């Protein structure tokens, strides 16, 4: 723990990734203003931005240290990868939906990749991973007392209730 402003100003690496993702998003929207020519590269910028942003945002709070942390880290990378592959496949594969298209669990190929890839896979894994990696010790009475003791004496302990 440090109060040195110079150290404090150093960005958390996840914040750096969020910044990069936001720049990609802004670039994507800016390209859209260029009309038809900018629409496709704009969509690609949004694909990249989303693939970076979702895991980076989760990394702001997910436990990333120790054995469990390495599993969570792997899951976050995998989430970004799944989003990237699913969205990129939807953009890159030919738009060949037709009356005789083969269906995968009710959807044509590109839609199935998006819905079951980016929609269902993380949904099956991430909430269970959260439960598995949750560190309940943060709410131990001793830890809460330790944090309370760190509160400056001139701070309002609690707004009126």
């Amino acid at each position: 723990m440090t109060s040195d402003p110079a150290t404090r100003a150093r960005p958390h690496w996840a914040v750096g990734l969020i910044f990069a993702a936001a720049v990609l998003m802004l670039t994507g929207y800016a390209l859209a203003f260029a009309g038809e020519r900018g629409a496709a590269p704009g969509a690609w910028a949004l694909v990249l931005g989303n693939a970076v942003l979702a895991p980076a945002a989760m990394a702001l709070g997910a436990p990333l240290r120790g054995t469990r942390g390495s599993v969570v880290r792997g899951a976050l990378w995998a989430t970004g990868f799944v989003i990237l592959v699913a969205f990129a496949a939807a953009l890159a594969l030919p738009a060949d939906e037709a009356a005789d298209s083969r269906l995968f669990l009710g959807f044509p190929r590109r839609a199935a990749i998006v819905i079951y890839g980016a929609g269902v896979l993380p949904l099956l894994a991430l909430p269970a991973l959260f439960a598995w990696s949750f560190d309940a010790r943060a709410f131990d009475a001793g830890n809460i007392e330790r944090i309370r003791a760190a509160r400056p004496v001139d701070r309002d302990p609690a707004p009126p209730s």
Partner: protein
Amino acid sequence: MSLQGVAGTQSSSVIVMVGVAYFAVVAAIAAWASRRTRTAADFYVAGRGIGIWTTAIASMAATISGFSFIGGPGLLYRIGLGAVWIVLPLSVTAAMSGWVLATRLRLLSEVRGVLTVPDAIAARYRSTGAQGLAGLAIVIAVTGYLATNVRALGVAIEAVFGLDLAAGIWVGTAITLAYSASGGILAGVYADLVQGALMALGSTLVFSQVLLAGDALGGIGASILAADPAFLSPWGHLTPLAAISFFFVFGIGTLGQPHVVHKYYMIRDPKQLRWHPLIMTGSMVLAQLLFIGVGLVVKALVARGELPPLARPDDATPAFLLGYTPVLLAALVFSGVAAAIMSTVNAFLNVGAAALTRDIPAGLGWRVTDPLRWGRIGTIVIAVTGAILATVSDTLVAFLGIFGWGLFASTLVPALAIGLSWSGATRQGAIASILTGLSVTLGLESLAYFNVFAFPAGVTATALALVSSILVFILVSLATSRSDPGPDPDIRAIIESAGA
């Protein structure tokens, strides 16, 4: 549309009886909760005494408005799978919110006694100014959101009970207000439990009827492909940019929804937060089955010629319920529509009242002496304002309604979610990002609404405001880090209590 004219007399009687029974249950919860609401903590955070199942299902019910039951299926029927991108982020949002906010907000509640999201922002940045600005953004967003939801509630009551729209709006407002003002969030979360269960059960049962009527997902897909292949492309009839943009806005934007994330304050045993994303995701998936199922099956039934093309896309759910489900299930879902709207309205009233009577006064340097009484007065003021707006002008409602989600997201995501995770964030960064979210959302949405200019397909004011406020937050924080005193030691410990 009145059910009296569409359903048979017997069917409409069943629907009305189920609706009356539902409202009676909500009234009973209100009466019970009002006797247990004695302090502001009871009123705003249910005395921090709610169990995990109730908290998680209440979070789901507050998230899902009537849109998922009426507007969503209608949108899917109209634009195809592009609409699914609105619910696609569900795959990551509950875990994301749990990791980023659950532990930190709850520890803030334990250590600093915070009751609202702007309270947390004030504690993080030692800034009542940031608290007041966040409160102002919440009041503006809540007012617009509330007007649209109250109007939708009026439409639902009009359809079920045959009242005129204005009467429906005031009856719906009065019922919701009765339990929101008397029992506060304590009444709200237990009503949400009933409402959420009703939504999930009704949605799941309707989905089973969807599979029967459509000849499973394969039959539905084949029928649609034969008539309109583009409907089942990943983007439907949207552009790729528009569809992918939904994922961004409804994904990361979840971290700034105060009526949902403040539920973390309420749980009795914070160690049970472990199960929150699992329960919330599971119940959200069930409740969203209707959104996707009905939108798809109605399109398939129209493609097969078994249903006439809909005059209005929003008729998709009523048309399917009345034509393809048992009357009792239709009645359950019509009550579920009211439930979805009322639970969202209650959550808005709660955070709006808190912002109006607690956060904005704090920003102005005023100290409220009787917060429970003022909380109740604030609830009434916001509810009546929403109902008046909903009654006087549908154009005004449409205009105000566009500010909801985007304003929450662009003003609160950076200062709350990133700021509670990054000790390098500064007070100036927080204030600048909230002001950016407010000005970009209100400015661009107003210009677009009044046709001063049109965005390219896929670009929305919400998305631009969210991106801008994130960038401004990080850049201003980096630029001002040397002059900023940084978080208090206890807040720093909370920031470091989760994450890398």
